[in-house]
């Protein structure tokens, strides 16, 4: 066998699976004549991966090459968990004016970092102010 011999191709049929699951909930509570509370939350779990690949090549065919592809499916696995939880408290100051205070947490967990590294992160978003009907 000389260098750079070429024998053809080895192949395997494989599947890619994407799985997603989402739940969400919102609620509005009129606590009394002046106070009300809006809450919202959602959780999403998403995964994408493909099956391990198996190709068979007679060992004597090649010397330097490696046809064990069983681990390559893990290079591009994706798995994210996203959580959003928030609430806004409203206080009616008059018939036309109200004040609000809202807090929302956004979180993303990267359980299978890809080429971008671990992109996990979270944000706590707070807002407050007044609203007037003109």
């Amino acid at each position, binding site marked *: 066998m000389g260098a750079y011999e070429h024998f053809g*191709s080895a192949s395997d049929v494989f599947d890619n699976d994407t799985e997603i699951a989402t739940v969400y909930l919102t609620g509005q509570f009129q606590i009394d004549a002046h106070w009300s509370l809006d809450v919202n939350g959602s959780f999403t779990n998403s995964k994408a991966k493909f099956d391990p690949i198996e190709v068979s090549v*007679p060992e004597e065919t090649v010397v330097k090459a490696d*046809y064990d592809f069983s681990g390559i499916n893990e290079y591009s696995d994706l798995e994210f968990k996203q959580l959003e939880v928030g609430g806004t408290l409203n206080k009616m100051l008059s018939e036309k004016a109200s004040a609000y205070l809202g807090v929302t947490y956004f979180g993303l967990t990267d359980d299978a970092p890809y080429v971008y590294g671990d992109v996990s992160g979270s944000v706590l978003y707070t807002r407050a102010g007044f609203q007037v009907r003109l």
Partner: protein
Amino acid sequence: MIGVERTPISWARPWRAGPWFVVLVPAMTALAIATVGTALAGDSKLMPPALSSARYVGDDECAACHEDLLPAHESGYHGGIEPFQAPQGQTGCEACHGPGSAHAESTEAGDIVNPATANAALVAELCLGCHRNDGLDGHEHSEHALGDVSCAGCHEVHGSQEPGLLQAAEPELCAGCHQDVRDQMFLPSHHPVPEGKMVCTDCHDIHRGGFQGQLVGEAPNELCFSCHANKQGPFVYEHDPVIEDCSICHSAHGAVANSLLVQNEPFLCLQCHQAHFHATLQGIEGEFESLEGYGGVSHRDSAKQAMLTKCTQCHTEVHGSDLPSQSISGGGGALTR
């Protein structure tokens, strides 16, 4: 396996493949003939029968019983229509509800058109009398028309603070029926619809029949290019699926993979392309350095990691390019530059 054996190819035409086509073509032809014949010969009026002899009585007559509707109507868009704005010449309540004399006399609901409950085709016919040129030509061909979704199903014609007299703001209004699309927007990669930076009708022409999904524009790709004009081309070096249909690679409503990719790389690419031939090679265990001083740590499977993780690290210009790639053997079209 080596040198995969080729299987016989059967490039069957659909009309060769199954009897359904043989049945369908005559059936559709018969339907077309029947349609033409019936339409020309039959009475296809959708209006309630009582309206055929009714006359117009004016808004004051309507207000006598429906006073509660007047404030919103009069301050709303339709309440202020002047005759010169109405191609049919009729304004006021009866422009949409039809001549009201029969209903005024009988007070029967069936003696007047009520768009809130009427057949969607009748409602559309009434609305299109004025709005046909407002991007509504071809409404009869739309999925909404076929699905019996009436204009009044989305619009509050007596008055609304939402643009276009919508019953509610987008995307909430659309999500009321299209829950599956709303759920896709929760995925990590999505257009900024939940964030309020886009709305459904930026992409969907919900009034007109068009391409699949009632997309805006002359072809699906043209819609995408209206915002992503840097992908538009035409380019010297093309990537066939970009020309064919953006949705071959991208899932517009949401995806797990970055950039709305239907699947992550390299699987997406491996569906049409084979693995880079260097992926079969092994790597040394340990540090190395190139002549130029670049290097790192190599492992046994490092060639596989390099070649089978993300194709666009090298083939960056997958949407097309005018600049030739470096390799002569690839004809300059490897889309790496």
